[in-house]
């Protein structure tokens, strides 16, 4: 399993309190595993993780846990809005801990996400939602690839 995002875990030694606060605010019982995950996830600002990469980190940090627990926790976190799934049209599910509005570059060949600030993208025309529905947000994903890769292929 590859750790596909450059994960430099220079987590400022976050004690248990903030992590358990995050969990209890979200109505989650602070189990040992969730605490470990919350520390990894929210100790640093703005992370993109996949189930695999987070599991790798968890194992390296010596915390208990299985892949399925990581998966379930991430899903639970996303259900209650602690992390957000990035709408990548690809095989890996990415979760973003930065919840303020922003967009992404997606380097397809490297399976890697890069943040784009919200005001770097402007839409000149937006479709109106179907009747009875309202807009919640607009997520833009700009797929990119290395320019020389294109030249080599072409």
């Amino acid at each position, binding site marked *: 399993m590859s750790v596909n995002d450059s994960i430099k875990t220079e987590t400022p030694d976050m004690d248990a309190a903030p992590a358990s606060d995050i969990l209890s605010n979200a109505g989650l019982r602070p189990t040992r595993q969730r605490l470990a995950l919350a520390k990894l996830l929210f100790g640093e600002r703005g992370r993109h993780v996949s189930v695999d990469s987070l599991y790798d980190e968890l194992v390296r940090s010596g915390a208990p846990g299985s892949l399925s627990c990581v998966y379930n926790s991430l899903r639970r976190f996303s259900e209650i809005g602690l992390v957000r799934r990035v709408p990548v049209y690809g095989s890996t599910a990415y979760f973003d801990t930065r919840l303020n509005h922003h967009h992404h570059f997606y380097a397809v060949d490297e399976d890697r996400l890069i943040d784009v600030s919200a005001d770097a993208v*402007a839409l*000149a025309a937006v479709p*109106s939602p179907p*009747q009875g529905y309202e807009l919640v947000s607009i997520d833009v*994903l700009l797929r*990119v690839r290395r320019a020389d890769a294109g030249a080599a292929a072409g």
Partner: protein
Amino acid sequence: MTQRPAHKERPDNNSSGPGGAACNLEISRNLPSAQEARTQAMLARAGLRPTRQRVALGGLLFDGEPRHVTADELFRDAAGAGFPLSLATAYNTLNQFAEAGLVRRIAVNGERTFFDTDVGDHHHFHVEAESRIVDVPTGSIEFGRIPLPPDGYEITAIDVVIRLKLIATSKQSTEPVSCVVDTAWNAHPDARAIERGGGTKSVLAAGAVTNCGGRRATGHCSGI
């Protein structure tokens, strides 16, 4: 290699009754042979061996309008078409199709994974609460500004997902999104036009203006 799967995969069974290769018969009853041949050709072009299962599922997927399916739905469709298979097979086949570029996987915030049989460039509405995906009409999104790609990279495509929710106050809005696809989804409703609609639509206008930093009326939506 791939020249003659059409004859190889499908024995001449159009006139024979039930019996023999049961699965195969069921398929050919549901798919006209021309359609089947098309599916086989498509699979071959995508570099996939046209197995019976792939041909059958390909027929279900690509027969008719483009659509968004989940593995569950395809599984049910297949059973309904008299071609029972396991959920795992439906899922695996969809993934193989996705890797071959025949369908596109759509990841949204939710537990279901959608596969889009239309792989062309287009965007999506996503109603999270209903696990539902709807195409955004072509040409209704225009970009005013996009960022420069990172150094050494080029932008190859842009995917937009517009998240929607049901307007809470509206009483007659229980109809699913797909039923209103044909209503006017204007390219750019300005705030005044929406307000003229009155009723539920003014709620929508309020939401839209908030989303666009209050610059909606100028026709330019910034920092969404």
